[in-house]
């Protein structure tokens, strides 16, 4: 069966990968029949209505899903297609309370025109009653016009008429309302680097967060990603090299736990602990179903690992006869760390810690300048599932999702090249991204 997905018109490169992830979560095969990044409408093939409901229910970037009753580039084609696809079903809806809605993208219609459009479907013979609130069935006419963004980017010319028209029957809403529920402005514990609610929820979807699973964020901060993963049912662990980031300033209260409490997710919170990814205390065995993270990349949040700067020997300082590291309040020395070295560590950690088919969803910054573009790190035991990009003015960031391949399967990394950036000792020497952002 063909279904029509209505997407939110933003984060375009995330939309298809998220839809695919939601289908994987629902355990159904999805075929994407037509997709255009400049349009919110996308036609997909799914086994049945239950599958359509299940897929939409998990998605953040889908607004709602419909059963496709017909499509065309003008009303003549649309009516012909509606007859062909659904004539045998019109009788089922003859006495059902219904509502007709005209939805348009980048266009508009006057009330009179809308009435005319609705009346043009009178051949289907629905007797009603018409019910504008809580109808049993809601039919949508969707008109897709060419949008200004597409005109500006692709140089196509804007037409008076819609380029595509659909008729569809509404099936289900998505869970997009959670973007408001988890809005950072209403969250108890946040910091300057908290990831916004929408992208956190999308990240959790890409990594297939679900009940019964264990998720981990090695750079947990204020917990945006693990809160999102727990919203979808996963139990979650978090670690950070700076314990203050998840603890917060109020004594006797654990900042990150306040967030779990706020959203009724206390039963999904396992633990947070202070640790450094390069010296992680996690056992070298596959215990995690998913890793979700936005590693620090040295612009807003410094890139640091435990250790001494080069030239400074590792000394065991003794104060009042007690080794300094045993005294209360000891803060171990940290040193700057390479941007790519960090990504390597995350990938190696994921390979060791993920169960087969477990996922890593990692954010990574890049510039918009092609000459200095940052390559995607690859590992032979990880398959790249998707790469999505969020664009900013002078830079952008990518969400890369990997699947841990079961033993015996390897991904092809032959086209990739080796790269090492651990030369030098200062933060700028080690981090090409930081250098570029500073120049900009």
């Amino acid at each position: 069966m063909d279904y029509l997905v209505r997407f939110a018109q933003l984060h375009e490169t995330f939309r298809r990968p998220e839809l695919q992830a939601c289908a994987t979560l629902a355990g159904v095969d999805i075929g994407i029949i037509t997709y255009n990044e400049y349009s919110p409408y996308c036609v997909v093939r799914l086994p049945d209505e239950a599958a359509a409901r299940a897929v939409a229910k998990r998605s953040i970037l889908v607004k709602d899903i419909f059963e496709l009753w017909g499509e065309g580039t003008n009303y003549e084609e649309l009516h012909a297609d509606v007859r062909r696809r659904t004539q045998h079903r019109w009788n089922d809806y003859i006495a059902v309370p219904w509502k007709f809605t005209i939805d348009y993208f980048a266009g508009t219609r006057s009330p009179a025109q809308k009435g005319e459009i609705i009346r043009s479907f009178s051949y289907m013979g629905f007797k009603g009653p018409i019910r504008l609130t809580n109808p049993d069935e809601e039919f949508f006419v969707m008109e897709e016009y060419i949008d200004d963004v597409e005109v500006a980017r692709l140089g196509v010319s804007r037409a008076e008429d819609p380029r595509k028209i659909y008729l569809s029957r509404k099936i289900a809403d998505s869970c997009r309302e959670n973007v408001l529920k988890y809005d950072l402005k209403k969250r108890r514990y946040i910091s300057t680097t908290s990831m916004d609610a929408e992208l956190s929820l999308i990240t959790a979807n890409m990594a297939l967060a679900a009940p019964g699973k264990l998720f981990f964020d090695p750079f947990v901060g204020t917990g945006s990603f693990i809160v999102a993963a727990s919203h979808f049912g996963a139990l979650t662990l978090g670690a950070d090299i700076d314990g203050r980031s998840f603890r917060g300033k109020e004594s006797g209260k654990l900042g990150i736990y306040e967030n779990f409490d706020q959203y009724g997710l206390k039963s999904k919170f396992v633990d947070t602990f202070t640790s450094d990814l390069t010296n992680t205390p996690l056992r070298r065995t596959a215990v995690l179903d998913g890793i979700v993270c936005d590693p620090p990349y040295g612009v807003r949040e410094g890139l640091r690992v435990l250790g001494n700067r080069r030239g400074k020997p590792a000394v065991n300082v003794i104060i009042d006869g007690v080794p300094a590291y045993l005294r209360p309040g000891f803060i171990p020395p940290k040193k700057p760390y390479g941007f790519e070295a960090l990504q390597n560590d995350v990938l190696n950690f994921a390979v060791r810690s993920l169960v087969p088919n477990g996922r890593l969803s990692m954010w990574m910054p890049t510039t918009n300048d092609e000459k200095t573009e940052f390559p995607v790190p690859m590992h032979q035991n990880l398959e790249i599932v998707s790469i999505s990009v969020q664009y900013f003015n002078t830079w952008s960031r990518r969400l890369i999702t990997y699947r841990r391949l079961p033993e015996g399967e390897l991904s092809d990394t032959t086209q990739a090249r080796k790269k090492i950036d651990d030369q030098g000792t200062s933060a700028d020497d080690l981090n090409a991204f930081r250098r570029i952002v500073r120049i900009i």
Partner: protein
Amino acid sequence: MKVITANFVTCAVKECKTSPASFPLHFHDAELEQQELDFQPEFIRNILPRIDWEALRTISNELGFPSLPDSKPEGDALENEQTLRDLHRLLLETQVTEGKLTCGNCGHSYMIKEGIANFLLPSHLGEKYCPFVLLDHIRFANILPV
């Protein structure tokens, strides 16, 4: 720190990771707290195969809980709700709020304060970071977004 987490962590010192004595880390001066949480049987069933049972028995004894069975519940035993509830209580509802976790190999102790363990190592214990070894399997490629 919850009992389940104690089953997933070992000494952060790299040399200790290969020594059997480093796992499990041993609780000392532990103050315990019980917290009631929603029972999630699907989580217990999913996570149990990843639990090191011997280590869980050791920790459970050290914390003064009744002895666990000799072998990990498997198959039909996982259909028994009481078994799952008991494991839920031990793994997720029991946490150490104050105390120390000590490595049986190097003897280093990690402090637990207000339920949070600190695994940061003093500089003489942390291995000097060497990316050249780790980089062996990593490649970078320019891939365009889908």
